[in-house]
């Protein structure tokens, strides 16, 4: 779906266009994205999903998941158009966590959370992920320069204040830093793509002060 050609998105006097998950400025993004949650973040900023308040509500919840989920970030998100289907997959830890949480049904949307194998080692139930979020609207870069090595990769340990990315706002580059020490579990936002305020960028597992985790 293209955003550049405004007239292609609009139906005049007919049925409204179907919501879809593609980011307005990124025609190559697809509705199914195994990189998961943050690319579903743009559901909020998506083209015609404006007209589907329920899909947006789901989008909000999906946005919040990395921070709230005790089972880790979703492994896969699938968002369909027309009738609005949202599938969310988690790697589910066995009990005591129980079945993966389901997003409450909203309007015409139904959400299915599926368990997928193999489960990872169980997380302590009270560990919440730290999510580094965009402090403002801009373009998020994984590396200091085009072609350079990325600041962080999944599995890296970062210390408090360490730069994990760069946000470009009107030609000014702002370092994005981790608030506290952690281990990178997901680089959520794609490289060199526009991000909204508060959009999840990097998901970190906090490090215990005794060094484990």
């Amino acid at each position, binding site marked *: 779906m293209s955003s550049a050609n405004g007239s292609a*998105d609009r139906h005049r006097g007919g049925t409204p266009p179907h919501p879809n998950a593609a980011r307005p*400025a990124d025609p190559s993004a697809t509705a199914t994205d195994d990189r998961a949650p943050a690319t579903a973040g743009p559901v909020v*900023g998506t083209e015609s999903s404006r007209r589907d308040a329920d899909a947006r509500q789901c989008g909000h919840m999906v946005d919040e998941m990395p921070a709230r989920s005790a089972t880790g970030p979703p492994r896969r998100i699938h968002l369909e158009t027309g009738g609005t289907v949202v599938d969310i997959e988690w790697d589910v830890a066995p009990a005591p966590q129980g079945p993966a949480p389901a997003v409450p049904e909203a309007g015409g949307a139904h959400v299915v959370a599926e368990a997928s194998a193999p489960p990872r080692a169980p997380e302590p139930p009270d560990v919440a992920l730290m999510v580094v979020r965009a402090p*403002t*609207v*801009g*373009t998020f870069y994984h590396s200091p320069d085009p072609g350079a090595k990325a600041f962080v990769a999944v599995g890296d340990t970062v210390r408090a204040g360490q730069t994990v990315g760069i946000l470009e706002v009107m030609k000014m580059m702002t370092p994005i830093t981790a608030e506290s020490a952690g281990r990178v579990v997901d680089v959520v936002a794609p490289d060199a793509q526009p991000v909204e305020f508060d959009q999840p960028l990097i998901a970190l597992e906090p490090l215990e002060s005794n060094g484990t985790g």
Partner: protein
Amino acid sequence: MLSTVLVANRGEIALRVVRACREAGVRSVAVYSTADRDSAAVRFADAAVHIGPPAARASYLNIPAIIEAARYSGADAIHPGYGFLSEDPDFAEVCAAHGITFIGPPPEVLQRLGDKAEARAAMAEAGLPVLPGSMDALSSPREAADIADLVGYPVILKAVAGGGGRGMRVVRDPEQLTLAYNETRTHARAVFGDERLYLERYLDNARHIEVQVLCDMYGGAVHLGERDCSVQRRHQKLIEEAPAPGLPQHVREAMCEAALVGARAVGYVGAGTFEFVVSPAHEFHLMEVNCRLQVEHPVTEMTTGIDLVHQQLRIAGGEPLSVRQEDVAVRGTAIECRVNAEDPERDFAPTPGKLVEFTPPGGPFVRVDTHAFPGWTVSPDYDSLLAKTIAWAPDREQAVARIDRALDEFRIEGPGVRTTIGFLRRTLAEPQFLAATHTTTLVGAMTAPREDDPCPHDDKADQEPCPTAVSALPQESSPSPSWGPAS
């Protein structure tokens, strides 16, 4: 015509612009702060971008965030609404530098008319009558006193970077002038980031009547008649109507013509409003020029049948005016009442909170411009305007009955939430208002301080809110010059 318009505003005016875009077949992009995530404009726009936290400085006043949002969403134009960045020449310049059409006058016009002292001088130079007073910003209390002695008391001190009724102080007693000068300067520095003041003769018992103009890029200019905005509390409008009742036709024509002369003289483009103060003897003086769409634009739309926002989009898209002066006819009377989330019993203190019930009126020739809905939370971060209720009728008497009926029908409830509906209806019933003999003193007289008032000033209604009062208006807390409805 424009392709994609980003609406750099919030609340009811953002929805207003989105609606006009829809009708014109233009793609709309809403920007929102976290507090406005569920707002009507965000839901109805074709796309939306989350630009910042609730604080206006980090969101609706955040130029880089808004420009990035325009790039992100492919917007080729930005409509700034009213308040916020709508009259910020820097913002207009940044838009131009990024190839984005700013829907409003060119930066240099904004700069010139945004400096209220310079605007006065420019209009005087164009031949418009202005109130006696200083032609430049005042350089000292001494100069203020000299000019005040020359023009005669009472005088009003105004912030050069102010406007919209903010940053003003009436002085009746020469002994008070220096203190008032210093206090108003301090206030201006804090609120507008610019401490410069100018001074004018103050007319008691005057009417505030303004003229709406539309100008295209090709020198085409029309006026759409005038609005009477005399019902004000502390210089903030509460009730507006079109046309101005009881205004002799020759005065009306002279004022409208003066507005066109002024607009042409500065090369105005877009929708603009020329505000005049009119004495009981019908002498009119230019007070200021508002380079944006006004809050009260619906009363002009209802009496002329012209969609002002649509015209703004056309003009910004490079099209010539589709309306000729001979096509403009003002029919009937339209009255607008601003319903604010404020408690009239507690000196109009803002009452944020969640709306449990919100049922606007309907019926013939009733219009409600609002962003609110049941379940909407009125945020403490922004101004208290909840809904504009407008009624049209063939004559003023019927219009008053209709707007009163509409306000009676309006149901707004929420824990801790109060509205000014009751106060508005009281005002509509005031004999002076019904007789259309009221002036800007009306509301002040209705809300005259009681003996237990904690802020015993003379002419309290003319002054800024007492700093110790609980009723700190949210829009005063931002140091930016453009903030809140301000109209």
